[in-house]
């Protein structure tokens, strides 16, 4: 195989847009993927929410960068990814939840986020039929949205191919050739690829890949199950996030996609650690009653398909982004905590700039450093 400037490991939410940005910056790029095509790992498992509404500055910045790219995909690049700017809506049915959401607002606004408290009537107007009883209102961020994860990776794949990126599939990375502290080649089960830079964008398997250069980074996947319904005529636009926990689960969220289907997901408690992606019997009885309590009219919609995807978690809920300090030319872009889809497009240019021109965005690279103190906790999960 030929020599590349950069080899990206993983053709997923992070790797595919990144490969495109690197190629646009004039680098020769190869993407190596273990599975048979793009987006077949966690990318296609992502339900499609895209937001900048986080609670820390790096993720907000990256999230905004993502939204900026996504908004331009159709008008400037001719790529339709079913993006709908429907906003994120966090309804509150208890004083405690309302208080918690309201407390975040000053911080979120300080980062320039367009988010505010809306009253119960406005929540009901935006989501006709949502449970009225006990509804106190909620926070709403109109500039967030949702899209098709399949179409997003497909769009960047086409752009990357047009920009000259090479892809190889069904190829597993087994190690690296490191000489005098510098990465020289990627070793795969299909042979060796020489390169001067490697980006680990291996998602759920990111820790395993970093371990191959002796870097033990705290990325441990847990898994969430998700589902999609039949399509119906549009009746609401926002991503609805109910953060009130019940006995078996924490938050759950759902939205109506461009096809008219409801896409939904839940965070089970306790967390299900590991990389098992087989569907379980627990998911539907866990999530459906909660959805029907919040939105009774969903009772008549039919569930079409279920699946399970990995959330490659870090201890503080923030991604790990940055060069390895011991192996020159090895870049970590892992631990997306289930947000690779919404962070990937924004991270792509930030990382490409660092690799191609050595320019690191200070805030992002400081906050997401592989060598940061991981003891902090995310406020808005």
């Amino acid at each position, binding site marked *: 195989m030929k020599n590349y400037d950069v080899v990206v490991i993983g053709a997923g939410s992070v790797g595919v847009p990144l490969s495109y940005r690197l190629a646009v910056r004039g680098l020769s790029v190869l993407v190596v993927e273990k599975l048979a*095509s793009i987006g077949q790992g966690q990318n296609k498992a992502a339900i499609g929410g895209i937001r900048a509404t986080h609670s820390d500055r790096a993720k907000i910045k990256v999230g905004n960068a993502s939204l900026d790219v996504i908004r331009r995909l159709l008008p400037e690049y001719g790529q339709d990814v079913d993006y709908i700017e429907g906003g994120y809506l966090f309804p509150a049915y208890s004083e405690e939840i309302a208080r918690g959401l309201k407390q975040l607002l000053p911080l979120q606004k300080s980062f320039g986020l367009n988010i505010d408290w809306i009253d119960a009537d406005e929540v009901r107007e935006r989501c006709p039929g949502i449970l009225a009883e006990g509804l106190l209102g909620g926070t709403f961020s109109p500039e967030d949205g949702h899209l098709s994860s399949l179409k997003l990776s497909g769009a960047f794949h086409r752009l990357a191919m047009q920009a000259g990126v090479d892809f190889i599939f069904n190829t597993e990375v087994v190690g690296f050739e490191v000489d005098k502290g510098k990465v020289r080649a990627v070793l795969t089960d299909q042979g060796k690829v020489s390169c001067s830079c490697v980006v680990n964008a291996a998602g759920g398997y990111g820790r395993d890949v970093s371990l191959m250069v002796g870097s033990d980074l705290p990325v441990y996947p847990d898994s969430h199950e998700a589902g999609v319904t039949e399509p119906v005529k549009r009746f609401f636009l926002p991503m609805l996030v109910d953060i009130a926990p019940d006995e078996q689960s924490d938050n759950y969220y759902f939205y109506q996609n461009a096809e008219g289907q409801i896409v939904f997901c839940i965070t089970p408690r306790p967390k299900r650690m590991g990389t098992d992606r087989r569907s379980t019997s627990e998911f539907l009885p866990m999530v459906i009653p909660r959805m029907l309590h919040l939105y009774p009219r*969903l009772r008549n919609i039919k569930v*079409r398909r279920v699946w399970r995807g990995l959330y490659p978690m870090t201890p503080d809920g923030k991604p790990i982004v940055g060069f390895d300090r011991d192996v020159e030319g090895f870049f970590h872009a892992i631990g997306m905590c289930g947000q690779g889809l919404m962070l990937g497009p924004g991270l792509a240019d930030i990382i490409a700039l660092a690799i191609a021109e050595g320019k690191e965005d200070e805030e992002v690279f400081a906050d997401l450093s592989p060598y940061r103190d991981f003891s902090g906790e995310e406020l808005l999960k």
Partner: protein
Amino acid sequence: MRITKHPVLDVQEGKQVSFSFDGRTLVGKEGEMVSSALFANGIRTFSIHTVGDAPQGLFCANGQCAQCTVIIDGLPVKSCITPLREGMDVRTLVHHPELPADDALRSSHPPEELSCQVLIVGAGPSGITSAIELADLGFSVILVDDKDHLGGKLVLQTHKFFGSMADCYAGTRGTEIATILETEARNRENITIMTSSTVVGIYADGKAGIYQDRLEKYVHVSFEGLIVATGARERSLLFPGNDLPGVFGAGAFQTLVNRDLVKSSERVLIVGCGNVGLIGAYHALQAGIDVVGLIDIAPAVTGYKVHADKIQRMGVPIYLNHTLVGVQGDGKVEKATIAQVDESWNPLVETAKTFAVDTVLIAVGLSSADEFYASGIEGGFPVLKTGDANEIAEASSAMMGGRIIGREMAKLLGSDVTIPAEWAEKAEILKSHPGEVFSRSYKLQEKGWEPMIHCYQEIPCNPCTTVCPHDSIHLNDRTGTIMDIPEFSGKCVGCGLCVLICPGLAITLARKSKEEGLAELVVPHEFDHDYEPGTKVRLRGVEGADLGEGTVKAVRHNKKHRTSLITLEVPLELATSAVGILVQQEEVIQPLKETDFSYMPDNAVVCRCERVTVGEIKEFVRENDVTDINQLKLSRLAMGACGGKTCLDLVPRVLMQAGVDRGNIHPATHRPLTVEVPMKALANQGGGQK
């Protein structure tokens, strides 16, 4: 348009109810499927697709696809599995449905948790026989089926069975075998039967999720072992117009015609000359439906010769080396064009013939529905598959195979049982493909009756040898199995039992008349008729050649076999060659004077749910580097209600046409749920019917 008289099926009167369709008041039978009630009222368009406003009609009639979705009382439901009730408000589904503002809060309930040692999915011939076997060994069994009765596809099979009488009820009609098996299963206390219950997922934690549509319930079943007896799906075919209402599977046709006694069509063309297509033609004729012909791209009939012979005798032509160029019509099937193919299977347009038909039946084979087997393997459970889910074969072999798999499962779960070696041998023979064809000629003896056995191809079948009261019919012992061909030697009293029992209608009785130059010929007849003595009929040779005229002398109807024996007076020289009489008039099979030569294969629909065409897939492949079928989901292929049940079987061929190397094609991922389930059922909010 109902079948009011049927030669082998009882026509049940049923209670009439009135319902409305798009505001028009119509009448149907209470409890019949809404789709059948609509067909009976001449309605064949059920919905309008969002893509291209294309009209959609019934396709599988088996609850598997969602082509038959209509709006009933405000909600989209599959009409083929929804029983008709008085006062139903049925409407055409136009684009996506609107979710009703049904905003009252109701309480949800967790699924009921059941358990068993062995869960058997599918109560067709193989599922029931494995359940019986396991129950007799003391295992607790839950037998689940998505239909409201047991027997699987046996209930659609009105013809007499092939196979051996001792092992699989050969000579008995499928409908009757279903009843026998159901009774046996219900007589065993350790078999719990769940009907109208669809397994929608086999989950990693050792549970099956089961949707009970009538009860609007969702239950879990834990199991130690899993037997997948889910049968098969009909393969589809790519041709322009393949999604028009009026193109449907042979299974759907059997369901409408044989189960629901609805005259689904006036005139059909059948694609595929395997047993399913051949039997489909026979069932059509019995239901009073014209058959313009059967076509197959193969150079030979793949089904049993006796089946092909009998329908040709009845006046249905078989076009081999032919393909379906396209189906035309304004929102429904009106015409179908066929043409002969060259060596590379391209149609020779100059050979095209266009027929006026309202229905095209697709009978191009089956593919195993074995996704739950894959789920079982993935889950690491003891799992076995049987019947068509394991290997496509006749129901006779499925019954034998089911017994074996029942015992295999007992062994997997630690039971010390043996499986008789001859069971496996029998199962092998019963699923044999038709073997060699031999020729044979008869010479009529001077006195007395003699059976003329026009059975020339080795097939697994022996009922004629077991019914003869004088034990005068024996297999010729060429292979020493029931594949061998029957031969007569010995005494014949002319009782006609061999004529009545032969599933191929391939046996006649003949004797010389007292009058010089004439003979008496007894032929089987499974049609309604009013032949008075003296009626002239056209005599047909074994493969359908017209031989001349015969005169009806007498008709005896055998109630048990639901078959008539027609005694004919025929010229002596035809007594050994005439095998049956013409049933369908010859003008039926004439093509139209004007032939439609257009050939636009890229317009064929691959994914019916999302209406993705061959042309669109080819374009997608050109724009994206595609080898993984999962990538095609971007075009929405396989993203619809059915989950790729039909299209995923067709896609590899399209990819190859688009230049993708077959060896590089990566298959699509399957995910639960098998069928769509309303959230109210998943949450057990109640409201189902008792």
